C-alpha cells in the first residue's frame, strides 16, 4: 500500500495528472466548439427552409387566398418528413395544419422562435421546433416550422462522444502516469539504495546508470564523478595525516629522548637548565611545524580567507628584501633587486609576504655559490606579465635537478645535502599553497647556474586608481586591468 502511495506521490505521477487535466480541458473545448458550430449550421438551414416555405405560401395566398393555402398545407402534411404548419383565423381557431397543441401566446408575435409543440395524432408527446409566425392579410396567422429532433439527436451524439473520450482519457492517462512514475521511481529508488550504502561506508559503490542519456542519467553521471572526487580528496587527506603523524613523531621522539637523557645523566642545576632549554627549543620547532602544516591544510581546503586586500606586491618584495638584507650580508651574500611599480594584487598580504619570505629564506640557506670565485648573489625581482604578477627569487647555488623540481614542492621534502641544516621542509609547500589559494602557482626553474623560484599571482582585477596620476598613466592602468581580468578567469578554470 505504501508502495502505491509512494507512486502517487512521485513528481512523474503528479505531472501526468496535470497533463491529464490539460488534455481533458482541451478535448472538452474542441468537442464543444464543433457541436456548437454544427448546431448553428443546422439552425441556419432550418431557418432558410422555413423562410422559403413561408415565401411560397404567402405568394400563393396573394394569388388564391386562404383556401389555396389550406389545400396546399393539407397536401403537404400528408407527405412523410413534412414541415410543421398551422393556420389560424382572426379568432385564433386552427383551420389547417398538423400541430395539435402550442404553448399559449406563441402565435401572438410574428417572427422566428423556438418553441415546444404537440403533433396531431400523438397528443401528450412534447417536441421542440423552430418556427416562424407570419401575419397574412385578413387576420389569418400562418406558422411554418421544422422539428428539432435531428438537432437534439446530434447534441446527444456529441455529449456522448465527450463523455466517452473523457473517460478513456482519464483511464489511459492514469495508468500511463502510474507506469511512467513507477519507471522513474524504480530508477530513483536504485539511486537511493546506492547512496545509502555509500553513506554507510561502501565508498567504492556508484549510482546505477541506465544508458538512456536523459537528464536523470546526466545527473547520475555527475554524482558519480563527485563521488570519485570525494574519494580522491579523502585519500589525499589520509596521506597527509599519515605524513603528519610520521613527521611529527621524529621530533617528538627526539624531544622525549633528550628529556630522558637529562633525567638519567644530568647532575648539576646548569645541566638540567641546559636540557630544559633544549627541550623548549625542540618543542618550539614542533609547534612551528605544526602551525605550518595547519596553515597549508587550511589553505588547501580552499576555504576563503578573511583580510584580503588590494596591495602592491612590489612593496611586499621591498619590505622583505629590506628585512633579509642584513642576514644576507652576515651570510656573505648579496641581495639584488629589480622591482617594478604598480604591481597591485588582491589577496592576503600576510600570506604572500610569508611565501616570499620563505623563498628568500631558502635562497639564503641553500643558494650560496659553490664556486668561491663567483659571488653569492640572490636576485629578487617583481614584475607584471600578461595580467600576472611574478615575484622571482633567483640564487647562484647548486640549484635543483629538473627531475626533482616537482617533488620538492611536496610536504617535508628535504633534498640530500640540506638535511644537516635547520628547516622543516615545509617552506616551499607553504609558498605553493599560498600561490594556489590566490589562483596562482609556483614555478621552479634553472637560473643557470642556480635556482629560480617564481611565485605567480594574478594581478588584481581592479587596481586602486590614484587621483594624482596623469591621464596617460590611468589609461595604462585600465589596459592592464582588462588584460588581468581575462587572465584571472583563465586561471580560475
Amino acid at each position: 500500500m505504501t508502495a502505491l502511495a509512494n507512486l502517487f506521490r512521485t513528481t512523474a505521477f503528479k505531472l501526468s495528472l496535470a497533463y491529464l487535466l490539460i488534455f481533458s480541458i482541451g478535448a472538452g473545448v474542441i468537442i464543444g466548439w464543433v457541436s456548437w458550430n454544427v448546431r448553428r449550421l443546422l439552425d441556419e438551414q432550418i431557418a432558410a427552409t422555413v423562410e422559403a416555405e413561408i415565401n411560397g405560401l404567402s405568394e400563393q395566398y396573394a394569388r388564391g387566398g386562404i383556401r389555396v393555402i389550406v389545400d396546399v398545407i393539407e397536401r403537404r402534411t400528408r407527405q412523410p418528413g413534412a414541415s410543421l404548419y398551422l393556420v389560424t383565423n382572426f379568432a385564433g381557431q386552427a383551420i389547417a395544419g398538423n400541430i395539435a397543441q402550442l404553448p399559449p401566446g406563441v402565435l401572438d408575435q410574428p417572427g422566428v422562435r423556438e418553441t415546444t409543440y404537440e403533433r396531431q395524432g400523438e397528443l401528450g408527446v412534447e417536441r421542440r421546433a423552430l418556427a416562424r409566425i407570419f401575419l397574412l392579410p385578413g387576420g389569418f396567422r400562418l406558422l411554418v416550422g421544422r422539428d428539432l429532433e435531428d438537432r437534439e439527436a446530434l447534441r446527444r451524439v456529441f455529449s456522448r462522444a465527450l463523455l466517452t473520450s473523457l473517460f478513456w482519457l482519464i483511464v489511459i492517462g492514469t495508468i500511463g502516469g502510474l507506469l511512467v512514475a513507477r519507471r522513474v521511481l524504480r530508477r530513483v529508488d536504485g539511486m537511493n539504495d546506492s547512496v545509502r550504502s555509500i553513506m554507510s561506508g561502501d565508498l567504492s559503490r556508484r549510482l546505477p546508470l541506465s544508458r538512456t542519456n536523459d537528464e536523470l542519467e546526466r545527473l547520475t553521471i555527475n554524482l558519480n564523478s563527485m563521488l570519485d572526487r570525494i574519494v580522491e580528496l579523502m585519500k589525499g587527506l589520509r596521506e597527509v595525516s599519515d605524513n603528519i603523524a610520521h613527521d611529527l613523531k621524529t621530533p617528538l621522539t627526539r624531544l622525549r629522548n633528550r628529556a630522558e637523557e637529562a633525567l638519567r645523566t644530568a647532575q648539576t642545576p646548569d645541566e638540567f637548565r641546559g636540557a630544559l632549554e633544549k627541550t623548549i627549543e625542540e618543542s618550539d620547532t614542533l609547534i612551528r611545524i605544526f602551525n605550518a602544516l595547519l596553515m597549508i591544510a587550511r589553505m588547501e581546503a580552499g576555504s576563503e580567507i578573511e583580510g584580503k586586500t588590494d596591495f602592491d606586491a612590489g612593496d611586499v618584495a621591498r619590505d622583505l628584501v629590506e628585512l633579509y638584507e642584513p642576514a644576507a650580508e652576515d651570510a656573505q651574500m648579496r641581495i639584488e633587486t629589480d622591482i617594478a611599480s604598480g604591481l597591485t594584487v588582491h589577496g592576503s598580504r600576510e600570506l604572500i609576504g610569508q611565501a616570499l619570505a620563505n623563498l628568500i629564506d631558502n635562497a639564503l640557506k641553500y643558494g650560496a655559490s659553490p664556486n668561491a670565485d663567483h659571488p653569492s648573489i640572490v636576485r629578487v625581482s617583481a614584475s607584471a606579465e600578461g595580467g600576472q604578477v611574478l615575484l622571482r627569487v633567483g640564487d647562484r647555488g647548486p640549484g635543483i635537478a629538473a627531475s626533482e623540481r616537482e617533488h620538492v614542492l611536496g610536504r617535508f621534502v628535504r633534498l640530500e645535502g640540506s638535511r644537516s641544516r635547520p628547516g622543516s621542509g615545509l617552506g616551499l609547500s607553504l609558498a605553493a599553497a599560498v600561490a594556489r589559494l590566490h589562483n596562482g602557482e609556483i614555478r621552479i626553474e634553472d637560473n643557470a647556474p642556480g635556482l629560480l623560484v617564481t611565485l605567480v599571482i594574478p594581478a588584481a582585477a581592479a587596481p586602486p586608481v590614484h587621483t594624482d596620476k596623469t591621464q596617460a598613466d590611468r589609461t595604462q592602468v585600465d589596459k592592464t586591468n582588462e588584460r588581468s581580468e581575462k587572465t584571472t578567469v583563465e586561471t580560475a578554470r
Partner: protein
Amino acid sequence: MSLMRILVIEDDREAAGYLVKSFREAGHLADHAADGLEGYAMAREGAYEVLVVDRMLPKLDGLSLIGGLREQKVETPVLILSALGQVDDRVKGLRAGGDDYLAKPYAFSELLARVEVLARRRAGAAGETTQLRVGGLELDRLAHTLTRDGKDIPLQPREYRLLEYLMRHAGQVVTRTMLLENVWDYHFDPQTNVIDVHISRLRSKIDKGFDPPLLHTIRGAGYMIRDGAR
C-alpha cells in the same frame, strides 16, 4: 614594570593556574575567571589593566565577551589567546575589539611581554611625546634625529623605526615577533635570525664606543632598551 592587575579568562584550569602563577611570579596581580559570563562580570566590575581572554569559552565565547565589553564602553586592553593560529582568525579577533592576539601554544615570555606593552599603552606613558630619552640616548621624533651623549648618530629609516619602537617601550621586554609586527607589519614567525641581525646592527650604532650598553638581549624572550645606570 610596575604592578599590573590582570584578569585571565580561560576555562582550562591547568592553563589558567599556570598563567596566574606565572603572572604573580612576574610581580603582577592576577585573577581568574573560568567561563565567559563570569569573566564578563569580573571585567566590568574590577579595575583591570589587561584582560587575557581565551577565544573558546563556555557560556559566552571570547569574541562575544569582548564585543559586549566594548559596547558597555569598557576599554580595558584585551589580549586574545587562541588555539586557531590562522591569519584570518587573527583578523577576526582584532576586528571584534581585541588589541592583540597570540596563538596557542605560546611562550609565557612572549605573553608577558605583550601584556606589559598593552598595559603601558593604556597608561599612555610613552605615547605621544616628541622626545624619547633612554640614558644618554635621545630620539627627536619631529626632527627624526638621534644623539647619544650629544653626538649625532645617523640611522636608516627602518633602523629609526626599530629604535623608536624599542625606546617607546623602554624598560619592557620586546619579542622578535612583536618587532616584526610593529616595525615591519608582518605577523608570521621569523624563522631565522633576521631580527637578531637588525638588532645587532642597531646595537653597533648606538652602543659601540659608549658606556653603559643600553640595548640588552633578554635570553629566551627578546630585547629591551634600558638605562643601565638604573
